[in-house]
């Protein structure tokens, strides 16, 4: 990171690229999950593929984890640098006069999402890793749906998830269009990008929340 | 009374500058590296000179009192810059620009200098475009022009209402390149407080670091003064708060003659004074007179009603309005030169037709232009030309595109919407044509000390035409001084570095230190601003738009008395060795208090009316200025002689070989 990301612009481009990568992943994740609402079989089929395909498991999964860690670490590094660039703080600073709350608080929304990820990993990823690589239990192509539904029987978890999805939406509201700006994309299509970004930022987290609530209500 | 030699070259006027360049001494590139030049001021003239001198190879030290060269007050020039490009094909030429400038200056400028200015004007535009200055362009991608006061062609290049800014940033960028290369050493937040002469030659300056208060010595083989004009003598002017005469005045006290101090330009279109708290006046570009019509009510009762807020200007119909410029000067109308427009406004207001609370304002109305442009646009677009609302909307859009930033500025200050109601304007001090006397090489009467831009007197005579100040600043800095200075410096190639340890530097530093100590230790009761305001009132009231013998004599006495009171009773807080704005101001006002007296003396001496200088004793029966060519076709150059009132007059005769002296008529 040191040498290659030495400039402010390269850092923000890296932030944007990792963000876009995560947004693509999120979309993919969502598409698979939403199938659970319609059909346990399709969901199991997708999940089985993702859980056992070596390319997904040993190439894409590490990249994804790296992407997540990079995005978070970079976010914190940038924030520390930015605070340092100010020096003495203002006695009165009226950010609301010129910018949106979400744009100024990406760290807050991001940290919430990070906390959620910890929970989410604890809920799904850790048991999954344990199942496959620690205890090495025999693969059952139909287990995924049951595991999912089981998790959402707990109301606390559902509430935590929904709250997290709200923060995720906030994070994406700014993050989507911001990543385009960072990569130098600002032209006559920008309003369209912004509108699409809003749709994505609200739609995806809403969809995830819907899935969680759906299973909670249907168990 | 000695005659002054301007050292103008021989030959036909169109060839003088070329011949001169061919015959003056040059300094070889290798030797330029051995020569240091100090440039004081980083506006258009100073900035462009510093950059060009550095390009040529000289070691330049540049000084400005602002925190960055980019903030010099050239940045505030709005309207444009003249150049005889004839891109519009309307018959413009070098000769015409030369002629218009000399005539506009009411035949009180030096022919050779003005011709040279017109000649290099075209190079300026080429140079600036090459630097990336974003001038306004038409839809074909070529440069656009507009028209300014006192001329019958369109030769003014512009960048919306921010031409000065764009040109200055161009010069600043050229400086930046040289600063980056180490050829210019930039000293910002430094004020020049004295000139150092060694063996009669200018060899350095004494400065005060405005942050630390440290007094510093700087040596060089030549000193260039580009510190701008002295409009702040009037306290209220369109100049920046920091603009001052100190550098120019200090060289005057060291032997540089000061020429035509009374030639001051009062700009006709400024935002009127709103109250006693006012610290400065804001200009509304002359370009507005391209489209705005100036008027006052025809009847005094209506004017009274408007002043008292009982009547709105838009309520008055055409027949109740007096478009006095169009009435008096049908040929030029609203685009008469500045001095004429200013005097006409004052005349109406003095007669009781003024339209703001103080009775010192006239209207500048865009209603007609809105309709004209709106109809034109509607026609082009194929819309209904009789749809009033549509025409208004389209017209206002065009006005906004042309003058948007000026209208916004006006609205912020006056709190009225100039798209809906006419602007109120009144004349204000804007530019000083007078300044340090220089010869054809732009050298003052001190060998090795040069003056360029508004700081010198040379090109505008008794009245400057619009869009000519930017032209002169850049002409001097880019294309004249860098060559002519070589003629002087050619003798200095063996001099070697100048030491700052000489007794001359010591003495100069002590002079400066003594003055500073006197201010800091003075236990006075009144602030510097108190004196500055009072000085401004005296000069504005008695040496303003119209002058007479009695008041000028009073002004001289009053300024002298005020100066004495100033030294006795001024209070300067704080310490000398720290950031201390009141101290910096005191040092500037001290010089204004001397200049003010010479200013009145010069105005008193010149009993004719010419350009911006209007003597009530010398006018035609219709009240127009009456020049006296038989007795006053000369430059008054004043030699410092102890007290400003004792200054000695030297005359440089003005010989017109290429232009016939005529009564200036804009009727």
């Amino acid at each position: 990171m040191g040498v290659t990301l030495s400039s402010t612009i390269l850092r923000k481009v890296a932030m944007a690229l990792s963000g876009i990568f995560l947004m693509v992943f999120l979309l993919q994740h969502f598409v698979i999950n939403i199938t659970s609402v319609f059909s346990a079989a399709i969901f199991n089929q997708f999940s089985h593929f993702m859980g056992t395909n070596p390319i997904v498991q040993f190439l894409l999964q590490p990249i994804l984890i790296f992407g997540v860690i990079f995005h978070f670490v970079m976010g914190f590094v940038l924030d520390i640098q930015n605070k340092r660039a100010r020096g003495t703080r203002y006695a009165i600073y009226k950010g609301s006069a010129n910018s949106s709350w979400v744009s100024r608080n990406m760290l807050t929304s991001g940290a919430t999402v990070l906390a959620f990820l910890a929970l989410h990993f604890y809920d799904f990823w850790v048991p999954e890793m344990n199942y496959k690589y620690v205890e090495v239990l025999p693969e059952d192509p139909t287990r995924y749906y049951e595991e999912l539904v089981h998790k959402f029987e707990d109301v606390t978890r559902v509430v935590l998830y929904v709250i997290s999805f709200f923060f995720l939406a906030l994070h994406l509201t700014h993050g989507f269009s911001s990543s385009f700006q960072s990569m130098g994309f600002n032209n006559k299509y920008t309003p369209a990008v912004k509108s699409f970004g809003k749709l994505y930022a609200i739609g995806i987290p809403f969809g995830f929340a819907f899935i969680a609530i759906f299973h909670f209500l249907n168990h | 009374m000695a005659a002054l030699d301007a050292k103008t070259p021989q030959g036909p006027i169109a060839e003088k500058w070329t011949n001169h360049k061919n015959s003056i001494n040059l300094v070889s590139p290798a030797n330029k590296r051995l020569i240091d030049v100090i440039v004081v001021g980083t506006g258009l003239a100073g900035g462009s000179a510093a950059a060009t001198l550095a390009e040529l190879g000289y070691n330049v030290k540049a000084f400005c009192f602002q925190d960055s060269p980019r903030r010099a007050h050239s940045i505030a020039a709005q309207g444009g810059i003249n150049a005889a490009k004839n891109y519009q094909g309307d018959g413009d030429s070098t000769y015409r620009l030369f002629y218009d400038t000399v005539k506009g200056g009411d035949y009180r400028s030096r022919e050779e200098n003005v011709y040279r200015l017109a000649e290099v004007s075209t190079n300026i535009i080429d140079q600036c475009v090459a630097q990336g200055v974003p001038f306004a362009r038409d839809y074909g991608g070529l440069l656009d022009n507009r028209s300014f006061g006192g001329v019958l062609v369109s030769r003014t290049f512009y960048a919306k209402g921010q031409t000065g800014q764009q040109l200055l940033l161009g010069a600043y960028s050229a400086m930046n390149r040289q600063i980056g290369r180490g050829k210019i050493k930039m000293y910002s937040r430094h004020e020049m407080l004295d000139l150092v002469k060694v063996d009669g030659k200018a060899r350095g300056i004494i400065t005060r670091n405005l942050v630390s208060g440290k007094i510093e010595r700087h040596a060089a083989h030549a000193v260039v003064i580009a510190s701008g004009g002295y409009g702040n003598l009037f306290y209220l002017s369109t100049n920046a708060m920091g603009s001052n005469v100190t550098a120019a005045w200090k060289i005057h006290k060291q032997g540089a003659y000061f020429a035509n101090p009374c030639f001051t330009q009062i700009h006709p279109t400024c935002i009127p004074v709103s109250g006693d708290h006012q610290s400065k006046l804001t200009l509304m570009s002359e370009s507005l007179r391209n489209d705005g019509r100036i008027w006052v009510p025809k009847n005094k009762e209506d004017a009274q009603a408007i002043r008292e807020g009982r009547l709105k200007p838009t309520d008055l119909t055409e027949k109740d309005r007096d478009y006095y410029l169009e009435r008096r000067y049908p040929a030029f109308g609203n685009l008469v030169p500045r001095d004429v427009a200013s005097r006409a406004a004052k005349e109406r207001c003095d007669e009781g037709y003024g339209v703001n609370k103080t009775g010192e304002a006239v209207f500048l109305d865009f209603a007609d232009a809105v309709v004209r442009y709106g109809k034109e646009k509607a026609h082009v677009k194929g819309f209904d030309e009789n749809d009033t609302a549509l025409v208004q909307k389209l017209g206002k859009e065009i006005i906004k595109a042309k003058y948007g930033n000026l209208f916004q500025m006006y609205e912020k200050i006056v709190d009225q919407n100039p798209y809906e109601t006419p602007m109120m304007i009144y004349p204000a001090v804007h530019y000083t044509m007078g300044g340090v006397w220089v010869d054809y090489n732009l050298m003052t009467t001190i060998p090795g000390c040069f003056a360029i831009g508004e700081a010198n007197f040379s090109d505008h005579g008794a009245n400057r035409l619009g869009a000519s100040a930017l032209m002169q600043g850049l002409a001097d800095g880019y294309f004249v001084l860098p060559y002519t200075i070589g003629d002087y410096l050619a003798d200095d190639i063996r001099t070697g570095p100048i030491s700052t340890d000489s007794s001359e530097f010591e003495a100069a530093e002590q002079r400066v230190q003594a003055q500073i100590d006197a201010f800091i230790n003075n236990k006075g009761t009144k602030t510097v601003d108190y004196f500055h305001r009072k000085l401004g009132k005296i000069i504005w009231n008695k040496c303003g738009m119209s002058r007479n013998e009695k008041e000028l004599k009073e002004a001289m006495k009053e300024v002298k008395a005020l100066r004495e009171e100033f030294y006795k009773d001024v209070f300067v807080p704080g310490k000398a060795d720290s950031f201390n704005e009141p101290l910096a101001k005191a040092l500037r006002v001290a010089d204004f208090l001397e200049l003010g007296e010479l200013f009145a003396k010069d105005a008193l001496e010149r009993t004719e009316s010419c350009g911006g200088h209007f003597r009530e004793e010398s006018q035609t029966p219709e009240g127009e200025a009456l020049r006296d060519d038989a007795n006053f076709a000369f430059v008054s150059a004043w030699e410092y002689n102890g007290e400003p009132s004792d200054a000695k007059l030297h005359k440089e005769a003005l010989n017109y070989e290429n232009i016939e002296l005529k009564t200036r008529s804009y009727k």
Partner: protein
Amino acid sequence: MKLILKIWRQENATAKGSMHTYSLDNVSPDMSFLEMMDVLNEQLMEQGIDPVAFDHDCREGICGSCSMFINGEAHGPDRLITTCQLHMRKFKDGDTIHIEPFRAKPFPVIKDLVVDRTAFDRIQHAGGFVSVNTSGNTQDANAIPIEKADADKAFDAAICIGCGACVATCKNASAMLFVSAKVSQYALLPQGQVEATDRVLNMVKQMDDEGFGNCTNTGACEVECPKGISLENIARMNREYLSANVKG
């Protein structure tokens, strides 16, 4: 109008500063903000208190000298103006007004409200120019027609006054708007093309060396910019920078 002013006072660059409270009477709504400060200073001097130091010069919104952070905003509550163009009619009788210097690590305080913005100059030294000598023999100004839209955009970027409001207002103290305005002006004109690669690399490097923060696209700079410089310029600089890096 009567006002309570809370102003940052700091003796010099090394001294520790703090907010001081002053009350001021008889403020006219027609005064500009700086004229109000003049009145305050006259009052302070009468009371034997050192006047408040602040940068100011042209007082018509073009030189970029004035630089106050008023009630939490650069150049105060109004839009598209500098502090010198802010008028007291924007405030109410009895208001409390907080006045602080523009704050950023690269803008150290010199005294009170005066800050050192020479970092901006140094960024310009690194590449804010076209390398053309003053010969007077460059080609004719009309030799290269420039599309009006591009010329206008270049102008819109070029009107930056270098006041530093973008840095002061950015929560990250980023100077991207300032630097991008200059980069854009030249990127949009054919005259600037020749050195485009070096220019953007050098200027961004200098910007980073000065210690300005990272841009997070909050857009606050565009809102507070007295000249309304667009965020589009930052995107353009990002593009220029990326392609310059690719070209090396």
